């Protein structure tokens, strides 16, 4: 049990640190350091271009997608090297958020299910940040019940073998910037719902793709709706067999849990710093017993997540696969951040309502956390779905009773609020 680098890890860290010192966009450092939750931070230049430039530079030096094989544009290194890289990249990692979905979920899915030709064509530019990917899974009537999705892919009648797609996707992060989308669609409504799905990828500039931003509850525009109207997709852009889409999607979702969960912030360092400087009745807030008790509760959750991630990385480095136990990362981080934000506002008294960064305590970061955190508890699997996964796949408890289990998809009653 140790946190020490082995000699080869230490050499890698040294090499990475030297390269970052020489190559990182230091002119962006002040903005990145002050990035508040939910904002990219970069305002002095186009944040998309800033991200692309940094990713390109990393790729040129072999530091993009460290854990991917070299032939697909990665670094061909292990999970420990990846952790070392993330530690050393520090604030500049914020620039990489643009690629979280592409590198964390879409790429691994293409890697696992794509043809060799597709892998060689798609993965290197994704690793180098030249292309941005999004994930077209959720629908207005298919959220937690993802397998109930209704977007149809049907063979074109012209004998080309192409697929014609019609439907609506929702909660699509980055759709407005994306070059490619990973699409889960229904190809057979006459079989039970999990069996009638097929996975594709498509160019987001394809004819018939329309993107509409969704104004969120916190006022930001981050998620989108994507309308698909007679979008033509060649059969060569299918991933896995026809009807195997659910199995393919599990690759994506497991990687999603791992990539979201391991890097999830809880807001604890910010709250701790705030409690050192804030005052209650003229004394530092941190001297207050109630404050201490709450801080300790948040501290052990943040620490528990950190060391759970390290245990996962240890297991990965010994060749074990990421399992459903990684579901706890987002479950804990989401609830912690929300409770922590409410507590921070409570400490601010009536002034806790203020959001203007110039006016609000801690530049309004806790208010931003408060307004953003409900989404964390929903996106990528709600708290309740994650608890089901832990209960069923980790603890071995029985699955939910599914009344639609043996029903052909077209007979399943459905109701959801479309926008």
């Amino acid at each position, binding site marked *: 049990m*140790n946190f020490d680098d082995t000699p080869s890890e230490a050499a890698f860290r040294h090499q990475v640190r030297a390269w970052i010192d020489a190559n990182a966009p230091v002119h962006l450092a002040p903005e990145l350091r002050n990035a508040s939750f939910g904002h990219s931070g970069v305002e002095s230049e186009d944040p998309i271009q800033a991200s692309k430039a940094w990713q390109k530079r990393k790729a040129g030096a072999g530091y993009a997608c460290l854990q991917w094989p070299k032939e697909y544009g990665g670094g061909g290194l292990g999970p420990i090297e990846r952790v070392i890289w993330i530690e050393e990249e520090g604030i500049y990692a914020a620039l990489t958020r643009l690629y979280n979905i592409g590198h964390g979920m879409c790429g691994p899915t293409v890697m696992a299910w794509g043809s060799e030709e597709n892998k060689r064509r798609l993965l290197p530019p994704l690793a180098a940040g030249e292309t941005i990917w999004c994930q077209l899974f959720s629908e207005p009537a298919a959220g937690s019940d993802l397998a109930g999705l209704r977007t149809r892919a049907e063979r074109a009648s012209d004998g080309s073998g192409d697929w014609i797609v019609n439907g609506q996707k929702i909660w699509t992060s980055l759709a407005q910037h994306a070059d490619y989308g990973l699409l889960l669609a229904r190809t057979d409504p006459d079989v039970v719902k999990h069996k009638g799905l097929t996975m594709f990828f498509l160019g987001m500039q394809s004819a018939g793709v329309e993107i509409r931003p969704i104004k969120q509850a916190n006022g930001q525009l981050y998620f989108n709706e994507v309308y698909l109207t007679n979008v033509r997709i060649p059969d060569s852009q299918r991933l896995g067999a026809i009807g195997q889409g659910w199995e393919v999607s599990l690759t994506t979702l497991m990687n999603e849990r791992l990539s979201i969960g391991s890097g999830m912030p809880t807001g604890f360092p910010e709250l*701790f710093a705030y409690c050192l400087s804030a005052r209650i009745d003229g004394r530092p807030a*941190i001297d207050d017993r109630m404050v201490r008790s709450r*801080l300790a509760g948040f*501290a052990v959750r943040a620490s528990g997540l950190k060391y759970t991630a390290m245990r996962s990385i240890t297991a990965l480095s010994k060749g074990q696969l990421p399992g459903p136990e990684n579901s706890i990362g987002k479950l804990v981080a989401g609830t912690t951040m929300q409770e922590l934000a409410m507590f921070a506002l409570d400490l601010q008294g009536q002034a806790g309502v203020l959001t203007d960064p110039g006016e609000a305590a801690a530049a309004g970061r806790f208010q931003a956390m408060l307004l953003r955190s409900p989404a964390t508890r929903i996106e990528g699997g709600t708290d309740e779905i994650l608890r089901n996964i*832990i209960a069923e796949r980790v*603890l071995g*408890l029985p699955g939910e009773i599914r009344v639609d289990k043996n029903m052909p998809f077209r007979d399943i009653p459905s109701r959801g609020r479309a926008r």
Partner: protein
Amino acid sequence: MNLDFSEDQYLLRNTVRRFLADRCPPAAVRAVLEGVEPFDRGLYKGLAELGVLGAAIPEAYGGMGLGQLELCVLAEELGRSLAPTPVSSSIYLASQFLLAAGSEAQKTRLLPGLARGDLIGTFAFAESAGRTTPASIRVVVNDGHLSGIKIPVPDGDVADFAVVAARDADTSEGVSLVIVELNGPAVTHQVVETIDPTRSQARLIFKDARAERLGAVGGGWRIIEQVLDRAAVLIAFEQVGGADRALEMARDYALDRMAFGRPIGSFQPLKHMMADMYVSATLARSNAYYGAWALSTGNAELPVAAATARVSATQAFQQCAKNNIQVHGGMGFTWEFDCHLYYRRANALGLALGSLSMWEDLLVERLRRQAEELASRAARP
């Protein structure tokens, strides 16, 4: 980087687990709960013969000279099986006090007996309700003799000697540590009733009992803090082991018990309750590993890591033990089912070495110190 136990340590765990499955089934715990024996002497002797009591005691003093990680492995298994033995008092506390502050003569005289299980030691600390602080200690040592009352003293009824925290007539400041033989006429022990009868506790009354100094006059508090931090990591492993077992019991019962024509484990409220138990137990395990790392490497982060491990483990064991009863429904509240044994132990361990609120307070204070040190180091040119 490696945050896991080694293969040898996993082997040791299997050995200890098998041993305890054989020698410490629930019936053995109940024998202590319902009987007159204060602890399971045969089991304790067996642990000594296995060599694990002396795992972290150097070979020169009759131990195995392994490391603290082996003790962590042992502690988790003791917690899982609710072993009714004085290991925590004798090994986590008494032997650690001797190793931290004992003279060569004291170590040579006492450690081999502790490792063999022939001698039992304990630490007499608390005297009254509330947090024990230097100011709250009234027991006094004067010219080599100790007077006053300590309550509750874990294993105080069975221990051969105690390390006692006392005020010192030789100085107005600080706390002194002394070693007192408990079998002489100047010490009275009275067994006290507690929420967990599977681990005995006593009131010790000292009347001019001969007391031998351990460490420097008035220098005891620093040593107490050190040893409590070390013991906190080990107790956290006991709590993690207990939490895991309580969760397993709940899961097994929920799979077996039917209601409304389904296993009760298929109802979402129970599934989610058990998922939350799992989350809490997992966070506690990870924090305990952090503590084990700091303990075994002697890292300067130990005070933070120990408090983190302790707070997290107390939360987890309490949550798992109370919800284990809830999953069992009415049967969980019967004397016959073992749920209450875990509930009792969870709440007793939550108070051992000081309560949750004390450790929360220590954790935040230490995080603050750590932050200030980091800031001052960063400010240095």
